[in-house]
């Protein structure tokens, strides 16, 4: 299949291929389509056993209205208040660490780099008890800043790996030329490297946004109330409240999943560039 471009095969194969694509996509996304269908159904459909049939009435507005009338908007706001500062913090920290590790040659370079990479790979659970303890001691348990600080710190590992590899691939002559001109290192960072980093930073921002928005583990470990929990944790209490109300749980899930999806479609190019940076040299 792969090495042969489809244009070179017989018309029959080409038609079969084009017909197969939408079918495969439908099967692949069936679970999501089911949720979308559920979310516009009336409550009565579930009690009468009409799970998969056509909705007897369109209740999309009513269902989503109920979702927005619950605590969900608050959870969404919390998620934004957690995600956006984390993204900004990560960009600041990792553009600096990435610059330091990508441009300078010094003995400890590779070891500092490996520290970030190794830390990025550890299972969260090894950090759970100490980080929870630390957050409690700082008086930040069940607050948004408590969660943000941890996320920034942890994601710095991944972001450093990302930025450093990107900066390594830039032409080093630029820095050399700037040094010959007598430009200070800080100005090289700000005026030479920073402008070149922009696409990588955009890609990284999309990635981090998705990672943090979808985080559930730390949300459960470091927060517990509606005043600070993000939507991933909020959706579980929402679901507990509406247990077996499939139409509302579906609508809630869709609302909770929407921001990263929107982000993904708006910034598609960056996102994919971000995921594959480093995979291909």
């Amino acid at each position, binding site marked *: 299949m792969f090495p042969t471009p489809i244009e070179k095969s017989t018309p029959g194969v080409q038609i079969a291929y084009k017909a197969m694509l939408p079918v495969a996509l439908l099967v692949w996304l069936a679970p999501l389509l089911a949720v979308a269908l559920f979310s516009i159904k009336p409550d009565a459909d579930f009690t009468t*056993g009409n799970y998969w049939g056509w909705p007897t009435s369109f209740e999309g507005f009513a269902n989503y209205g109920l979702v927005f009338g619950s605590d969900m908007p608050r959870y969404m706001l919390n998620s934004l208040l957690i995600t956006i500062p984390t993204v900004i913090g990560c960009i600041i920290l990792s553009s*600096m660490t990435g610059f330091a590790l990508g441009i300078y040659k010094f003995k400890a370079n590779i070891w500092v780099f490996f520290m970030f990479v190794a830390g990025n790979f550890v299972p969260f659970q*090894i950090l759970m008890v100490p980080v929870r303890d630390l957050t409690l001691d700082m008086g930040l348990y069940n607050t948004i800043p408590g969660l943000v600080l941890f996320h920034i710190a942890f994601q710095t590992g991944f972001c450093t790996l990302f930025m450093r590899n990107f900066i390594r691939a830039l032409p080093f002559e630029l820095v050399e030329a700037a040094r010959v001109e007598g430009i200070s290192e800080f100005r090289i960072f700000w005026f030479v490297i920073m402008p070149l980093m922009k696409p990588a930073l955009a890609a990284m921002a999309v990635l981090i946004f998705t990672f943090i928005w979808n985080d559930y*583990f730390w949300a459960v470990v470091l927060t517990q109330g509606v005043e600070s929990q993000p939507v991933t944790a909020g959706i579980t209490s929402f679901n507990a409240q509406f247990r077996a109300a499939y139409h509302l749980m579906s609508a809630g*899930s869709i609302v909770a999943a929407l921001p990263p999806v929107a982000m993904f479609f708006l910034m598609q190019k960056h996102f994919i560039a971000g995921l594959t940076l480093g995979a291909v040299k």
Partner: protein
Amino acid sequence: MANVAVPQSEYQAPKERGWYKRNEIAVTPWLFLIPGILFFMVYVIIPIFQSFYYSTLSWDGLGEAQNVGLANYAELWDDGAFYTSLKNNFIWLALYLLAIPAGLFIALLLNQTVWGIRLYKSLFFFPFVISQVVVGLVFGWFYDPTFGLFNIALGWFGLGPINVLGDEAYVTYGIIAAGLWPQTAYCMILYLTGLNAVDPEQIEAARLDGAKRLKMLWYVVVPQLKPATFIAFVVTIIGALRSFDLISIMTNGGPFGSSRVLSFYMFEVALSEYGFRMGYGAAVAVVLFLIMLVFITYFLYSMYNEEKGR
């Protein structure tokens, strides 16, 4: 240019340069690294070692901690739930890796240029963007014995109904299947970009030599995808060992704790109604960390070799 006119002698002016100016290139990287290293030390590196220490304590998180030496590990040795979790962790590790060939397969399938293929690629990637909490919920319904699509499909073959999430024999596999859905999408996107970098000349040369289909794939295409495969392997192993969200959402470890993995069990003993046993939880986490350490060492070793090769 204006500075061309500046006499040469003016360039030799700096006599008295500050300490920083003289050591600028040696000092600057550390100035840039300090905030990052500080954050990372406080929240990641030091807690790892603290967890080792906590694992020797008997502590409820609030009162006095008591040093119990290796008693927590001795208890683990005889803990049935620990072995269940450990076994499930290895099942996760082995089966989660299926995401790699599955992702390669879809990537090969979509690596064509027909109308609208870009949209198809994006939509196939969709599951990865969605929170695992939602994925867990959706698959919970998919497996539902009364109305789930899974059992409806089984019914077509005269099988079922199977309550996947309520049956100790199937539950872990059911959850892994749910996890494979976004993970396959992830591997797919890694391979799609990898395929862009495959050298068409080599393909052509191999074709002239008579290589076809599977042989072409295995001997010509796959070796060129090695960087993508490495990343896919890394993220899949990490994903398998971090699996927590899906288990928490879909079964909460049940039925009868049969779908626990170490990461979930650790959370359960340390932070749930079973009591706040921080020390014991830390001991479970240490075991999980040591398993991960094997892989981390391998990953770093590979990266180190590659760095040297540059």
